[in-house]
């Protein structure tokens, strides 16, 4: 058992703890509004987890997580709107569509790094949003698409999201402690070295892109059937910005950081609403400070604190 595996196991247990808290939350919270808030924060947690796999573990700094959520949402949304196809089929279709498009994007940006990668994925996201937003005839453009609900009770939605999030975290954990975890991180740190050690860079990059975007697509599809309205708003750059905030604040490149970050940021932003919509100001500041001074995020700080406590 090596240290990184141990570290990952600890992070996984912590995220299981968070998920358990989420699962128990409804006992304390019966207000449908706050349940809704938690559901949306779990939606973001899914996006954060997917993006973290790509940016945190594989070093592919994509600027399109929200865009793939939008793609997922519109896939099932349009299937339902035009062809009356049930969510049971629509949601898997969303996963496939997002994953497939993600794989293609992954292959396209294969050679690009840093700012180039950021710019390309950013443009891709904008193109998608503009096309969907302007294809009034097919997508109803900026006005959004009313889609059927998935379940009757809000509690049911809540537990669907808890289950999916748990599955995603579990899958991520299994993936990362397998050899894939090593390969992805190797690619993140040094592609040339990874290749000359025998890691198939193209393959694993594409895998990372596909999985990450598929998760985003799933998140988007679920959100679509929860909110029952799909609109290009989902794919706004600022939404991606929010996801990045969550991951950086929580701790990029860790299992539990993004999850904690997403819940923390979104729930507290709902609370800050009353304080007059200063939430984004606070988070932006927080991100700058963290990126500048505590580069491992809150989880990094916590880990160091724990380390000190242990020592």
């Amino acid at each position, binding site marked *: 058992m090596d240290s990184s595996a141990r570290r990952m196991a600890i992070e996984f247990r912590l995220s299981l703890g968070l998920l358990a808290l989420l699962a128990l939350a409804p006992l304390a919270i019966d207000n449908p509004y706050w349940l809704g808030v938690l559901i949306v924060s779990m939606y973001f947690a899914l996006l954060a987890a997917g993006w973290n796999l790509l940016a945190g573990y594989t070093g592919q700094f994509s600027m399109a997580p929200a865009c793939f959520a939008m793609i997922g949402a519109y896939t099932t949304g349009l299937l339902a709107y035009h062809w009356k196809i049930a969510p049971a089929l629509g949601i898997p279709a969303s996963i496939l569509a997002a994953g497939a498009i993600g794989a293609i994007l992954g292959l396209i940006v294969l050679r690009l790094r840093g700012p180039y990668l950021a710019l390309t994925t950013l443009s891709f996201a904008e193109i998608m949003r503009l096309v969907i937003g302007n294809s009034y005839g097919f997508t109803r453009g900026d006005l959004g698409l009313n889609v059927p609900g998935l379940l009757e009770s809000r509690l049911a939605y809540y537990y669907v999201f808890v289950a999916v999030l748990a599955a995603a975290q579990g899958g991520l954990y299994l993936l990362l402690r397998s050899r894939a975890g090593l390969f992805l991180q190797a690619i993140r740190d040094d592609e040339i070295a990874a290749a000359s050690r025998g890691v198939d860079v193209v393959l694993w990059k594409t895998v990372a892109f596909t999985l990450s975007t598929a998760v985003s697509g799933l998140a988007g599809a679920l959100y679509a059937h929860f909110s*029952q*309205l799909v609109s290009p708003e989902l794919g706004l750059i600022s939404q991606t910005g929010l996801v990045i905030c969550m991951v950086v604040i929580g701790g990029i490149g860790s299992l539990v950081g993004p999850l904690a970050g997403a819940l923390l940021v979104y729930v507290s932003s709902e609370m800050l609403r009353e304080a007059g919509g200063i939430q984004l100001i606070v988070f932006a500041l927080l991100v700058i400070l963290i990126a500048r001074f505590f580069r491992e995020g809150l989880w990094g700080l916590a880990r160091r604190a724990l380390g000190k406590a242990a020592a």
Partner: protein
Amino acid sequence: MNTPSRQWRLAVAAAAAGLSIAAPAADPIKIGISIAQSPPGSVVQGTQVKDGLEIIKDRVNKAGGVLGRNIELVYEDNQGVPEKGRAATEKLITRDKVVAVTGGHQSSVCLAEIEVAKRYNVPYVNTNCWSDDVRKKEYPQVFNPGNYNSRVGLAMAETIAAMGVKRVIAFVENTDYGIGQAKAVAEALKQKAPNVEYKYETLDRAGKDFTPAVLPLRANPPDMILTMLLPPAAYIVMNQLYEQGVAPSAKTWLYDGAGIADYPDFWQNVKEAGKYMLEFGLYHPQMKTPKLGLEVAKTYQQRTKNEPNRLIFQAADSLLLIVDAIKQAKSTDPNAMIKALETMKFEGVRGEFRFSKEPGYKFHQWVDIPYVNYQLTEINQPVSKSLLVQAPGIPLAVGKLQKPAK
């Protein structure tokens, strides 16, 4: 032995009774308001709606409220974005427990919000969403004391027919309102002026530069350009139409169907581009208004130093409707309120009406809502001084319309 306990029981009973009487009297009736208070929504409209609602709220509460309870307005900013509107309505209903929702002034947002109102069975009074689709869904919870696209379409078609123009091009925003109205005009023209050559172009309401859409018209300008957009897009289009010398010009009329001429920031933004603009409107100071309306107008003028405008009145009516419904239903139970709204005869600030039960775009609609046509003949001209060419009781007189020299 049991005497104290009986006394005790009485005491508790009394206390409980006291509470149970005191409690409801204390807490106000919450009514949810979802309006645009930031872009891309129309902030101007949102503000006007708010002003109108506040006037009525104060009147009602000064008069002792409803069922002995004050009314409280809970505001949410929907930014004119459907997604935000959905979330806002959801919050108002589930978190703030409002008994009704109103304020809606942008069709796309209304269309998203009525879904929520229906899901939770909460009365929804549509203040200013013109899209016919809001009616066509025939949701029992939704009531429309405001204007609707078919009405505008017909009115504008009549004017176009009377003016005898041949080629008409419409610039409309890519929203349910804009596209809906463009189609309504097309429909109406088929009956009123079948030989008019009409086409419309959708513009992105968040767009910054519409010159590419305007330039092609320079070579061969049409006889009339219709604009069916909200500011700021509307202002930008008007300025660029003027800048390129397309309209208003000796050749081409400019006819606005969105009723933007009474916005407080209208002239500051359009200047010369607004002179000679022909305007479809729902209120004109020169049209006759009920006493209640005049009072509201006065209060508004005192509060804001602005001329009153249709949104003030529509908002006022929206809230009055809800209040009257609660009065008649003697409760805030949604079904009772809906029943009341469906049956009652309403005397509002713009006149008397009853909601129609006809299916289609007339469903739960004030069908013969009054409208006006007028022209702005001077820069910085207040609506009250503008040239009224049509109003309830005043037949359309296109002869009075003025055209620029070049």
